[in-house]
């Protein structure tokens, strides 16, 4: 294995594009070095980009925040303004692993690793987060929802990588929340999960809503109908029933040692309901 710290994003893209063998990017290493150790993936080339400009920065942009692809979970958790604007995104990131893992793990790594259970992904999706992607042909912006394509897979082309993720601006009367189910209290992989992001008008009526679920399909799913079910409501029982029905209908999970199809489907609906109530209260709504 070769370890390279390229001098620029362009040089990194060229290097990754021209590599004939297996190439990986080293962000926090909390997936890629586990795979290396387990001999699941033995890269020929490991590219470290953490030193490049902006990779470790959280900067305000157009009323939102641009988070560098090498920013760790711990750094996001310590950023009060980011947490105030996107509490659901930050709580998702902060659920990843232990204190030690938090010091290193990144949102971009969690996204690119392509786990259906990645804890930062559902809330990034409901936030409408957009990844900035550098490749051999230049830079493009890709909605986060379009990056994962299946377990361990993503839509980035050879030579492409994420340099930052934009969490866009939002009104004050808006918020989000993320919940996962695990049988323990810490250090486990989600059996199912849900994120909800809401915007309210001055009367507390939902004007826009996005719902995403994790670990219930090959990728994190944005459930459009579930968001639609909440719009125009103050989360009354009928709206919540519509949300739960839409979530359950969208679930397409597997049965494994962590949970059955039935259990995952049921809990995803319950988590979506609870996350909706938390997001609503955070947005200042009073039911």
């Amino acid at each position: 294995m070769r370890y390279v710290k390229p001098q620029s994003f362009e040089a990194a893209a060229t290097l990754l594009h021209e590599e004939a063998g297996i190439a990986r990017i080293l962000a926090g290493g909390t997936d890629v070095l586990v795979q290396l150790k387990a001999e699941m993936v033995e890269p020929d080339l490991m590219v470290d980009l953490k030193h490049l400009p902006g990779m470790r920065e959280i900067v305000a942009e157009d009323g939102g925040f641009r988070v560098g692809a090498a920013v760790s979970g711990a750094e996001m958790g310590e950023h009060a303004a980011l947490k105030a604007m996107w509490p659901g995104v930050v709580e998702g990131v902060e659920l990843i692993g232990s204190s030690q893992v938090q010091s290193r793990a990144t949102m971009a790594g969690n996204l690119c690793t392509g786990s259906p259970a990645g804890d930062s992904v559902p809330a990034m999706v409901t936030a409408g987060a957009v990844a900035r992607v550098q490749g051999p042909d230049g830079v493009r912006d890709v909605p986060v929802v379009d990056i994962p394509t299946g377990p361990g897979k993503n839509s980035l082309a050879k030579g492409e990588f994420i340099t930052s993720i934009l969490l866009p601006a939002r009104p004050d009367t808006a918020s989000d929340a993320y919940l996962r189910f695990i049988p323990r209290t810490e250090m486990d992989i989600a059996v199912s999960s849900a994120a909800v992001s809401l915007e309210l008008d001055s009367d507390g009526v939902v004007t826009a809503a996005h719902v995403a679920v994790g670990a219930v399909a090959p990728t994190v799913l944005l459930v459009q109908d579930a968001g639609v079910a909440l719009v125009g409501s103050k989360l009354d029982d009928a709206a919540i029933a519509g949300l739960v029905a839409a979530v359950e209908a969208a679930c397409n999970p597997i049965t494994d040692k962590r949970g059955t199809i039935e259990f995952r489907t049921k809990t995803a609906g319950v988590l979506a309901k609870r996350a909706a109530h938390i997001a609503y209260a955070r947005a200042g709504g009073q039911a």
Partner: protein
Amino acid sequence: MKTIPVETTINGDSAEFLCHADESLLDVLRDRLGLTGAKEGCGTGDCGACSVMLNGRVVCSCLVLGVEAQGAEVETIEGMANGEELHPLQRIFLEEAALQCGVCTPGILVAAKALLEKNPDPTDTELRYWLAGNLCRCTGYDKIIKAVQTAAAEMRSA
């Protein structure tokens, strides 16, 4: 595979070593630098026995490449005592017998110190969550939590 020269700072002293690209910082510390305080429990980030500080944050050194230490500040359990004088956490772990086999202890001490520097007065719940990535097969954790709280109280009054 050829080796790569790395210049770093370990426990405040500059250090140089050669390592392979795929070698973990844990293997470098233990096998190349003779710093065997950090232990390998799992090698996959689950147990925390290999905890060290990297640029002021607690990490699993089994999930850091040795080459990533280039230009970084590394602190290990070997740097925790001040000469012959044990750090309060170390002394109280001994006084209160917060260990049995001791394999988890260096990692727990490094992680606990990192928490107390951020939060000198944690609740038991905060402490248990913070140490969730440090597994102990022997003590059942209660003695560890009590010892860290005793040390925290002493450090606050110092």
